[in-house]
């Protein structure tokens, strides 16, 4: 047993995320690890296999910045707004590089993460019935239930090299507490060889109620303090989702040039997430 290291986000990404790694940055609308995604872009990681049920803006940025080689996913859009334009440009035109896809349904991804956390070779579900997904994803298989004879679907367990999630709180020892829409983050963290957790704050006492979603320090590789690190998604109890930014992203990301200008100015041109936020605020004030 070793406890989580309390590191800066820069150190954690440098130490644990290498080129070519299989990486899950999970978050289902809530607690999306945007700051960690930016740090991966800043450090110029390449050839990543990115896994996520709902790739949204941060995956659009990672794809547009050329970090990704493959995407394993079940729904890739800007929720309530429309397309992810950088994702589409990669799939439709191979820009900035071709993106290999492994596509599932949510139920399939959830089963695959749970299997990974449980150290099983595959997840099982009643699913993928009457959909064309298995025709294009050979990793979705069907088998006969040994007890009932029913035809069931199987998906290979997801075992990321590194899972990155964002949570509300950690204590000084690195125990992590999260609440609200917690998505598949617990399974994704436990399925990975290493988990990095960015948090809103580090407190002396978690004071977590019984049965709260706590990841014990020894199940986590690193805890990084990043105030507001889920922006423009939200952290319940801390700040609301910035729906206006999700809408603005549609215009920023639509053209290659406007995307590149944005990412160079606000992400590559800043040293960390706090500077990124200041850079956005300055741009908004000048608009």
């Amino acid at each position, binding site marked *: 047993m070793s406890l989580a290291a309390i590191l800066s986000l820069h150190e954690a990404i440098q130490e644990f995320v290498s080129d070519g790694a299989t990486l899950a940055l999970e978050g*289902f*609308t*809530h607690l999306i690890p945007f700051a960690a995604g930016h740090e991966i872009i800043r450090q110029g990681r390449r050839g990543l296999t990115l896994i996520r*049920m709902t790739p949204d803006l941060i995956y659009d940025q990672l794809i547009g910045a050329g970090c990704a080689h493959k995407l394993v996913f*079940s*729904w*890739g*859009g800007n*929720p*309530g*707004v429309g*397309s*992810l334009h950088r*994702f*589409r440009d990669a*799939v*439709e035109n191979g820009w900035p590089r071709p993106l290999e896809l492994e*596509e*599932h*349904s*949510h*139920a399939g991804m*959830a*089963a695959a*993460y*749970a299997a990974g956390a449980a150290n099983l070779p595959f997840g099982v*579900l*009643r*699913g993928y*019935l*009457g*959909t*064309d*997904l298995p025709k*294009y994803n050979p990793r979705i298989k069907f088998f006969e239930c040994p007890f009932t004879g*029913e035809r069931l679907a199987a998906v290979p367990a997801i075992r990321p090299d590194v899972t990155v999630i964002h949570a509300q709180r950690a204590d000084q020892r690195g125990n992590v507490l999260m609440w*609200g*829409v*917690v*998505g*598949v983050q617990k*399974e994704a963290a436990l399925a990975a060889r290493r988990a990095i957790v960015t948090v*809103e*704050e580090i407190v002396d006492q978690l004071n977590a109620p019984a049965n709260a979603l706590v990841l014990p320090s020894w199940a986590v590789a690193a805890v990084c303090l990043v*105030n*507001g690190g889920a*922006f423009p998604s*939200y952290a*319940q109890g801390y*700040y*609301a*989702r*910035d*729906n*206006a*930014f*999700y809408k603005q992203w549609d215009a920023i990301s639509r053209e290659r040039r406007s995307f590149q200008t944005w990412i160079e100015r606000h992400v590559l041109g800043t040293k960390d997430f706090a500077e990124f936020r200041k850079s*956005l*605020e300055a741009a*908004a004030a000048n608009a």
Partner: protein
Amino acid sequence: MLEEYTADEMMTIAAARKLHNGAVCFVGIGLPSAAANLARLSHAPDIVLIYESGPIGAKPSVLPLSIGDGELSETADAVVSIPEMFSYWLQGARIDVGFLGAAQIDRFANINSTVIGDYDRPATRLPGAGGAPEIATFSKEVLITLRHSKRSFVEKLDFTTSGGHFHGGDSRRRMGLSGKGPTAVITDLGILTPDPETKELTLTSVHPGVSIQQIVDATGWPLKVAPEIETTARPTATELGVLRNLHAGSARSQTTTIQPSPKYS
């Protein structure tokens, strides 16, 4: 005096009326979410709205932009994890009505939300399946709402994301699925319901001011029309008021300027 309304408002209101009080409804984002919340705030106060992000019994006062806005979890009876949502609640057969949108639909109410064109070289890459394939197969009944046009109502789907009545007839039952499948498709022009035998979508109701020919022309296959066709009741002032109020709250919450970073003591 009759109030003016848009075709989208008629669609949402007609869809809301299909939801009965007390139903347990798995809600897709966008048009289904607007309709489901309109139902909850008008004729179906005891409806249970479930969003795939985890909230069970959500009671939002403004329409969420995403499927997991804070408004949903803060107003829910319970918030569960994603694996629990899909295994215990959906696969566990606890959902009465699955409510979906789509980019394309065919005559047997199979839907596409994956790609337009070839999968490997798509003309348009859409977001993909999300929860839809399993919602469509494991809900006791499915409602679908989308705008009516030849681009969306097609002879052949480019990709079947989620199954409706498959090849028609008893094909659902032969696949071992017990639910009823899609029971209505509500569009901005009218309402289509599957024929009891063949399961082919049949025009059964036209919205006020819309002609049958207009709907036939907006459908990419030779549309069957029921012998006795209804005219959808006009939106009431109450329905319009509740719907507009939901949208107004949502618009306010989406135009806030970027908040400064939170500070901690």
